[in-house]
């Protein structure tokens, strides 16, 4: 293996990988980024994460660390000379861990239901998703960030979903900003930090990736669509499959 002291095995649209990228950027750590093909996993990935075979994996001086929240904490503890990501007070730190754990347990799984379920179950998934976001919004409250004045661990855990919001909104035909304006305000505040704005891909790019992935997985026969627009209003949108929404212009 090459001489890089810090290597990140990752996949660009992954909100979990983005957490690690933000943490590395906050600390100003130089690293080698290795894009992974998840349909054809590299020997390196399989060697470094044999249990889950998933990204992200951080390799530091040849030793792997897996699980995004665990990696972020490792980064904070190892490069502890600047930009602390964890609160210094133990009880506030426990709260930060609690909220990152809440995001991990609730946000991804529920968002997945939005694009895999149909009919009433899909509507219920949307409601559940909004409820979860409202709980998170409530926790932030009037504070600039989750735990107060400083951007940190709990913010990192959630903000990477922000670039996926457009995709969820499009699939679910709803507006997260309308339901949770303060949450969006918090996300935009986080986006003012270079570590976040330079890490999160453009929302439309994420949506295009999602459509491409769904097509490849055979969920939509794109031959029957004359033209797909990824932009524009929600009017005239059609559900071709339970998990996909495309805008069709004939």
């Amino acid at each position, binding site marked *: 293996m090459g001489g890089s002291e810090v290597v990140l095995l990752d996949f660009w649209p992954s909100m979990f990988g983005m957490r690690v990228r933000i943490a590395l950027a906050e600390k100003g750590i130089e690293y080698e980024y290795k894009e992974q093909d998840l349909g054809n996993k590299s020997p390196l990935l399989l060697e470094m994460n044999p*249990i889950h075979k998933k990204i992200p994996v951080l390799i*530091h001086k040849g*030793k792997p*660390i*897996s*699980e995004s929240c*665990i*990696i972020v*904490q*490792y980064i904070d*503890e*190892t490069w502890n000379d600047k930009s602390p990501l964890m609160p210094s007070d*133990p*009880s506030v*730190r*426990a*709260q930060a*861990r*609690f909220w990152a*754990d*809440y995001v991990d347990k609730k946000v991804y799984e529920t968002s997945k239901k939005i694009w895999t379920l149909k009919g009433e179950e899909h509507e219920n998934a949307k409601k559940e998703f909004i409820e979860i976001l409202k*709980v998170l919004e409530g926790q932030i409250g009037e504070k600039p960030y989750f735990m107060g004045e400083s951007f940190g661990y709990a913010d990192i855990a959630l903000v990477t979903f922000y670039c996926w919001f457009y995709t969820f909104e499009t699939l679910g035909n709803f507006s997260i900003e309308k339901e949770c304006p303060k949450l969006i305000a918090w996300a935009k505040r986080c986006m003012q930090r270079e570590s976040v704005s330079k890490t999160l891909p453009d929302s439309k790019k994420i949506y295009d990736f999602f459509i491409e992935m769904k097509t490849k997985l055979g969920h939509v026969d794109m031959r029957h669509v004359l033209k797909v627009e990824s932009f524009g209003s929600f009017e005239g949108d059609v559900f071709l499959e339970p998990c996909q929404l495309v805008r069709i212009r004939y």
Partner: protein
Amino acid sequence: MADEVKLYGFRGSPYGCRVEIALNLKGIEYEFIQEDLSDKSADLIKYNPVHKKIPVLMHNGKPISESLVVVEYIDDVWKGVPILPRDAHEKARARFWAKFIDDKCIPAVFKALGSHGQEQAVAEAQEQLQFLENELKGNKFFGGDNINLVDISATYLAYWLGGAEEAIGIKVLTKDKFPKLTEWCENFVNCQTVKDTLIPREILVAFYKKRFGKA
């Protein structure tokens, strides 16, 4: 000023047990408040409004929830016997295995038990247990000579699993497939800091017989 430590729990909960073991390791005195889970107290709902679950640790009036978050908090605040390794990479490894136990191992075991020993479900659970078997690497505990976060996370496997297996009449954690893990279970439940937190086996088995409809 003396610390005021209260634990809202339920005798028989493996998650509450994790916290009690951590408190015992640090030698912390605490008040245990038994919750009626079918009629949760106003206090519990106030201190854990998000999940409304036990265990909740109250330390000098501040609530902390989620058993593994609580265990890390205990290690952060009270010095003495370490629960997490001090080396950053070893700490990350311990957190990884604790998460694996919670996210993969225990749900797979629950599924095997819930299916009353259906072959596929048992095979999947055993696949996860095999990772733990390998991770023990000839050590007495996941923490080496002493228990650490990983051992504490696996409390359910050490004691509750055996009770459920007996109640249903199936075996998931078999001695021939998992000799190291079987020995680990024995060593773990005999630790002084663990012993007193466990409810009597007859009560556990009776509970599971009722739960799995095998009375």
